């Protein structure tokens, strides 16, 4: 299924240039990440070496080389969030779910990561859960947002 | 190499390796360059990197395809049709170089007439390629400012190898792609010194520099130089020698550094032939499968233990230098042969050093006339190098062809000798891989290379694998009309449906038990790239 979608997708881009980022985005949409097989296939379709593709892939923080976790928690690392208490929110998140910033739980259920500042500084500090934004977060509301269930 | 000789008057690579990188377009056909000639492949990749057009024609997906502008996946054995089709497009669309044809070539009308049979409909049918692709390839090749053809054993090891080569030569002449930088017809030789051993007259019909033994004048010169009278009758070719050994007409063989029991087609026949000899002496650096059949084995020194020269595929004569003393009691080949000659009472075999042998070669061979060791110190010289001040020749046929005018040979498509049928439905192709060489006499004695690949694999397309119930790594039996081998399967996307691929590197799997002995009528090269087989999983 995923393989077929990938094949169809790559047919569309075969031999083109200036499309690698778009291909990455679309493959990630299909697979949730960019697998070793996908890197091979992209390389063949676009006439590059697999290492070139992988080098580019790992250059970008938003592209995944491993399957995505079930739940992704992001905390903004921008200055407004920092100034408005993101550090304390980070500690609250880590304390609540038991996963350190920049890590995923061993079962890959939950990850916690810094996200780049998207310029919505009026809701600082904010966190995202699977893309949904929770603004003006305080350490006290973190358990409410993240719900029960400490990741071990 | 007979094909090129007919057309141009010389069978060697017309241009140089470095020159390939300068081409605007390269047609690489019947060559898996990155595996078999990795360093030459660098030039092809450089050319593509600089924006040149690389056309890869190969039934198999090869690494070079990654760098190619076009990949033509013609059916095995359909090269003449493909080239004929390209020529037809070039002529029909007025892309031929009529000045070049008029001034430098002859017999064009015959070629043009022969192209009548190469309508794109028919060519497309034979090759399995869309007409548009053939057209595009023809245009790409013909309209580039310079276009080179590179080929290797995929073209020559065929029952119609001479046809293949002549068609390529026609294609080059048709577009004026001869005698200028970045062009030409460029066979890539398999062994370090194939070119040299041919140049040196290790052929039954010629002395050094392709001087015919049947030509009285030439023979007289050699008789004068060597101080004997010489046999005017051309000798037997390799295959004929083994046949004659089988029949008993040849009774003694002095075999140096070869392992035909593994490398020749129809290996069982060869082994039998050698066993029937009254006397076999083998001279080698290892006790090869063939040496095991000998009456006497003479230990030779390796390349690192002697002085000499090799002539590479671009006709460049380069110095081989001694790095260490001969291992054990081994001796350089020339020295051993000289000892035998002296013991047999011959005159004219007293050499102190290989440099003296080269001086004798230069005296007797026009194209080597200007070669001498002191001139070969820095990078060697490319023949023809007729005189002591001549700088060597990087591009042949610049002003005129060696034979005068370039001779167009009409093309005719012939199928391979053994077509697949119900009983043997698949085509077996054989070739080389990067990590081993020939019968792997040398490479399997290198630990690391052996670690990487130590056994034969038969490559099979995923489609065929599925329909035959074969999985990657399964043990399968490959059977032809001549024999069978058992080998592990490797399911490979790059192998075309209906085909199998094996190397001939591993003595445990004698691939050449399967291949067929049919040879090209002119060049006598066996059809190693095409035979009908069947494959089945071993229960």
């Amino acid at each position, binding site marked *: 299924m995923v393989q077929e979608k990938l094949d169809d997708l790559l047919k569309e881009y075969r031999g083109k240039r200036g499309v690698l980022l778009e291909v990455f985005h679309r493959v990630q949409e299909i697979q949730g990440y960019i697998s070793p097989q996908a890197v091979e296939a992209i390389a063949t379709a676009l006439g*590059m070496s697999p290492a070139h593709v992988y080098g580019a892939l790992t250059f970008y923080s938003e592209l995944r080389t491993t399957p995505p976790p079930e739940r992704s928690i992001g905390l903004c690392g921008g200055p407004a969030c920092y*100034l408005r208490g993101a550090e304390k929110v980070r500690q609250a998140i880590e304390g609540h779910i038991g996963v350190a910033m920049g890590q995923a739980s061993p079962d890959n259920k939950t990850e916690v990561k810094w996200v780049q500042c998207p310029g919505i500084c009026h809701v600082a500090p904010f966190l995202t859960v699977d893309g949904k934004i929770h603004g003006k977060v305080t350490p006290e509301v973190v358990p409410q947002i993240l719900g029960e269930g400490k990741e071990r | 190499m007979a094909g090129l000789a007919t057309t141009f008057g010389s069978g060697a690579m017309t241009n140089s390796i470095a020159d390939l990188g300068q081409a605007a377009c390269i047609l690489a056909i019947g060559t898996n360059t990155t595996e078999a000639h990795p360093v030459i492949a660098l030039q092809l990749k450089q050319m593509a990197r600089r924006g040149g057009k690389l056309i890869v024609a190969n039934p198999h997906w090869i690494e070079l395809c990654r760098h190619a502008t076009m990949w033509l996946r013609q059916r095995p054995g359909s090269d003449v049709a493909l080239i004929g089709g390209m020529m037809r497009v070039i002529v029909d669309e007025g892309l031929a170089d009529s000045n070049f044809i008029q001034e430098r070539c002859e017999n064009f009308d015959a070629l043009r007439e022969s192209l009548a049979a190469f309508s794109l409909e028919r060519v497309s049918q034979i090759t399995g390629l869309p007409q548009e692709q053939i057209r595009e390839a023809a245009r790409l090749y013909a309209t580039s400012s310079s276009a080179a053809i590179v080929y290797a054993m995929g073209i020559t090891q065929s029952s119609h190898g001479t046809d293949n080569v002549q068609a390529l030569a026609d294609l080059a002449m048709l577009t004026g792609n001869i005698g200028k930088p970045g062009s030409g017809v460029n066979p890539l030789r398999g062994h370090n010194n194939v070119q040299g051993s041919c140049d040196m007259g290790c052929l039954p019909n010629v002395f050094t520099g392709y001087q015919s033994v049947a030509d009285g004048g030439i023979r007289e010169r050699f008789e004068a130089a060597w101080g004997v009278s010489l046999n005017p009758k051309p000798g037997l070719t390799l295959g004929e020698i083994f046949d004659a050994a089988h029949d008993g007409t040849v009774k003694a063989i002095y075999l140096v550094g070869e392992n035909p029991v593994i490398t020749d087609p129809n290996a069982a026949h060869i082994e039998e032939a050698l066993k029937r000899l009254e006397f076999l002496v083998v001279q080698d650096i290892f006790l090869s499968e063939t040496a095991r059949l000998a009456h006497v084995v003479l230990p030779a020194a390796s390349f690192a233990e002697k002085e000499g020269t090799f002539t590479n595929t671009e006709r460049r004569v380069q110095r081989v230098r001694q790095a260490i003393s001969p291992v054990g009691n081994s001796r350089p080949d020339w020295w051993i042969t000289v000892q035998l000659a002296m013991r047999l009472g011959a005159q004219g075999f007293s050499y102190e050093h290989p440099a003296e042998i080269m001086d004798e070669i230069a005296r007797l061979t026009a194209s080597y006339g200007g070669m001498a060791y002191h001139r070969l110190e820095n990078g060697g010289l490319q023949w023809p190098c007729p005189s002591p001040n001549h700088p060597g020749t990087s591009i042949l046929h610049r002003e005129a062809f060696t034979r005068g005018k370039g001779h167009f040979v009409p093309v005719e498509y012939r199928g391979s000798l053994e077509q697949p049928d119900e009983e043997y439905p698949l085509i077996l192709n054989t070739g080389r891989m990067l990590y081993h060489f020939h019968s792997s006499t040398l490479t399997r004695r290198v630990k690391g290379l052996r670690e990487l690949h130590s056994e034969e694999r038969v490559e099979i397309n995923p489609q065929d694998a599925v329909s035959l119930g074969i999985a990657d790594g399964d043990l399968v039996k490959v059977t032809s009309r001549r024999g069978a081998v058992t080998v592990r399967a490797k399911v490979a996307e790059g192998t075309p449906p209906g085909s199998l691929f094996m190397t001939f590197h591993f003595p445990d799997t004698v691939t050449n038990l399967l291949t067929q002995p049919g040879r090209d009528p002119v060049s006598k090269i066996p059809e190693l790239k095409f035979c009908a087989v069947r494959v089945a999983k071993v229960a």
Partner: protein
Amino acid sequence: MSTFEGLKTDGEAAWRNYMGDTKPLLQVGMGSCGVAAGAEEALAVLRREVTARNIPATVSITGCNGMCFAEPLVMVTREGRTVTYGEMTPERIPALVEEVLVRGGVWAEAALGVSGEEEWQGIRPLAETEFFRLQERRLMARCGVIDPENIEHNIALGGYAALHKALSGMTPETVIQEMNQSGLAGRGGANFPCGRKWDFLRQAKATPKYMICNADEGDPGAFVNRILLESDPHLVIEGILIGAYATGAEAAYIYLREEYPLAARRLRIALEQARARGLVGDNILGLGFKCNLELVVGAGSYVCGEETGLISSIQDSRGMPRIRPPFPAQAGVFGKPTNVNNVETYANAPLIIAHGGQWYASMGTERARGTKMFSISGHIVRTGVVEVPLGTPLRRIFEEAGGGVGNGRPLKAIQSGGPLSGFLTARHLDLPLEPQAFAPEGVLMGSGGLVFVDEGACLVDMVLRYLTFAQDESCARCTTCRIGTQRYVDILERITQGKGRPQDLDTFRWLEGVMRNGNCAHGQASPTAVISTLRHFPEEYEAHIREKCCPAGVCPLPAASPALTR
């Protein structure tokens, strides 16, 4: 092929219909700032209320008008006057509907202001509010006014007229002349004269030429480009096309950072609409000008905001800034001549062409012409985006538009220009907002991000964050940048842990000199945060290193020196 006149007529009709004489128009501010504050839910509730109660009203969307602090915004237009309501969270929407639609009045307590110059139903004009009164809204004229997903609105309010003017009545040379005359300098931070840059590309021989819009607004705390792209994407597209015409570029890319998905969506819609109307493509407006415009979305890399990093990224490679020479104007994307400008730079072009370079140059200061957008955030009451004439004192932005710190603590520092720039002190509030005034203080004015920092923050710790960012985003080409940023991080970390050594400050200055030798601005300038704070806030470092204390109480150290408490 549509003529411009036809498009204009259609646009105006659509706009009239939209604004409506009979039915009230309700627009929810759907910038990502609005969405973050709950605008999507607010819109849903509004739609539901209007439908359920069967009220004749048009419910639509608009972009952000810069008042992010008051999101979600709802603009209600009736009788030609638009009242902007702030903090219209889903819970407050029913009340709004009740007050404004059912009763037909206004909700004065929730109203931020009204359009136009006079008071209306007891609501003062928005333009007179503290947030607006220092602003000169040119680039942002349509932000928060039109539906950004509707090209007709943009055209009705003057969009694409400048492009039409250039294509139908000006040569590329005269376009560049106007640009030169305007004095417009690049808004991305480098401040290079735009007209001259375009002229380089125009004079390049090789073809095709490429025009690239740098929408990789990566500076944390900067979001002026986001507001423009989300609220009036066609303004930017028009500017790029004018640039392409002036330079002879046949192809253009907008390189957008991936953190702006809504801007990507708006740009895709805008491009589709523009293509459908012959405003982008092979024969633009039937005037024989060809320019294809593609959107490329990044994937999370700060250095792709550097123009050559961006070019590498478009070209299917790691977004590593390149070695110069060759410069992009000689060999950029795919080895062809290329020009890269920032979003806001392009957005100025239609204004300059429509009104003339002279007109444009009359705004701003002698050495910095025109208006500039700034995003203000951090310790400030009103977070948002303003557009002011260059030369406006920083203080007015902080105190009037921003409303000051607002928490009782005094202002300590101002971070301007992102991670490759540094920190100013409260003493610098009287600096005029022009790049030339910032430079002597060792800081860049930058692309428009201004972050205000109060006394509660520890600058050593904050600088450590900036350097960590610079380190994470180093492309890894230059040893000086890749390793130099790591050493800064190591030493800063040590200092915040009370393990600072006196010679560390000397190492900082020395290492900056080594890093100046880097290839691109990232490597050269990432020590600026350290160096500028060393210059303006030496006491913070002294306290951490000598006294082993963190006066702000942020670092895991005593808040005051043991010596002092004794």
